[in-house]
């Protein structure tokens, strides 16, 4: 079996056209890989570009050069040059992402927000809902919130909806951007347990964890992002 995620010699810069076209180099020569069943944690001070790196892997940010190789549907794909349609199918089937903040859609109930990645893959709606409810129960989200749209939830409640949504599928690769940031100790422990299960199931995880305690528990390896940054140390 091929390594699920290989990032090779990736470089990224931003050109700010509204600031006289200045070019901000963000990263260069980024190379690392994540094996199946492994949790790699991105390290380095804040502002060094850890979230940017996750966004590059997910395709939110375009890269200037280099390769992002992913095994998708039995084939090896370079996400750095893939067309939008391919990236969407990779996200649907292979590459999951738990962002720091939930982008809520007006009027959609929390349970349906969580179930959506399953229904998008053709799972029966009732079955998807059942799985979603089990996830929300495990993350201790009060049952009376399940049918409400998450826009009015607290930060921690939204984050748990977000985690449930990200963990509900059997994606082979999972990107985690501070999934435990606004959670209490009890729910942090639940998330650590869920990460352990993903590892046992052979999922490749790449994440950012500022919480040292969580990082110690889940990380197999730390990749220091400052090594790729032109600034070397953060502002």
């Amino acid at each position, binding site marked *: 079996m091929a390594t699920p995620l290989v990032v090779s010699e990736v470089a990224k810069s931003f050109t700010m*056209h509204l600031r006289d076209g200045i070019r901000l180099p963000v990263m260069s020569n980024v190379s690392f890989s994540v094996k199946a069943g492994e949790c790699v944690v991105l390290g380095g001070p804040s502002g060094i570009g850890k979230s940017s790196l996750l966004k590059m892997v997910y395709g939110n940010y*375009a890269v200037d050069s280099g390769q992002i190789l992913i095994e998708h549907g039995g084939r090896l794909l370079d996400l750095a040059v893939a067309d*939008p*349609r391919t990236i*969407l199918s990779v996200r649907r089937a292979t590459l999951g992402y738990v962002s720091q903040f939930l982008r809520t*859609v007006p009027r959609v109930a929390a349970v349906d927000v969580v179930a959506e990645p399953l229904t998008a893959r053709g799972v029966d709606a009732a079955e998807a809902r059942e799985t979603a409810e089990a996830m929300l129960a495990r993350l201790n989200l009060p049952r009376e919130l399940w049918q409400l749209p998450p826009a009015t939830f607290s930060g921690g409640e939204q984050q748990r909806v977000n985690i449930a949504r990200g963990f509900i599928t059997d994606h082979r690769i999972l990107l985690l951007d501070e999934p435990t940031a606004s959670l209490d100790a009890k729910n942090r422990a639940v998330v650590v347990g869920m990460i352990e299960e993903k590892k046992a199931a052979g999922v490749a995880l790449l994440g950012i964890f500022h919480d040292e305690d969580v990082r110690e528990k889940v990380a197999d390896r730390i990749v220091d992002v400052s090594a790729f940054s032109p600034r070397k140390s953060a502002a």
Partner: protein
Amino acid sequence: MTDTPLLKVRDISKFYGARIGCQNVSFDLWPGEVLAIVGESGSGKTTLLNCLATRLMPTSGAVEYRMRDGEMRELSRMSEAERRFLMRTDWGFVHQNPADGLRMAVSAGANVGERLMAVGDRHYGKIRETAGDWLRRVEISTDRIDDQPRAFSGGMRQRLQIARNLVTAPRLIFMDEPTGGLDVSVQARLLDLLRGLVQDLGLSAIIVTHDLAVARLLSHRMMVMKDGLVIEQGLTDRVLDDPREAYTQLLVSSILQV
């Protein structure tokens, strides 16, 4: 999933005399895909949409559409009658102003039923039943079925227009600023409705909008237009999170935060 595009657009240009409407636009639209065309007023978005939907004749270029039997047909080579039939059955067109897409002086039920009759339905009871179903789906109470859209609010008219378009189970729907002119709470409801329908029905859609939040919510892919040209295109969240072109950066940085 089929592996052929539903719509193939090659080098579409439209000139109004010496003025450019849109120039050299090419893309493929796949089944189930929602494409947003964004840009400010006068950038050529609506001209392009009208060229695709055969409401305007492009000056040059070709648009091919995959018919239900799988055959790719070039739209400009179809007869007027064939194009009209396509418009009434397999396609929908949602106008910014509902009055342009509805018949204001006939009942809501008849507005929806008319498209069914166009595809050959003749049974009055069945047509009325289907019309009632669709009114419910777009959240219009069925006791309004005999009212004329003149008596409806702007948001209701827009939902009625959507029902009228979707009743024949089209595969492709064109929308020109579908939420323009509606207040925000009505917009949110309409967006959620559209999103649900597109997902449930597996529709392909091309949406013209100047509202980037609408594009973010509804579309998979987007094209940014300026002065008639497509200056940037790609995955919606890539274009919005990491805009490359000066004009796109200006658009994205001009969004008001609430």
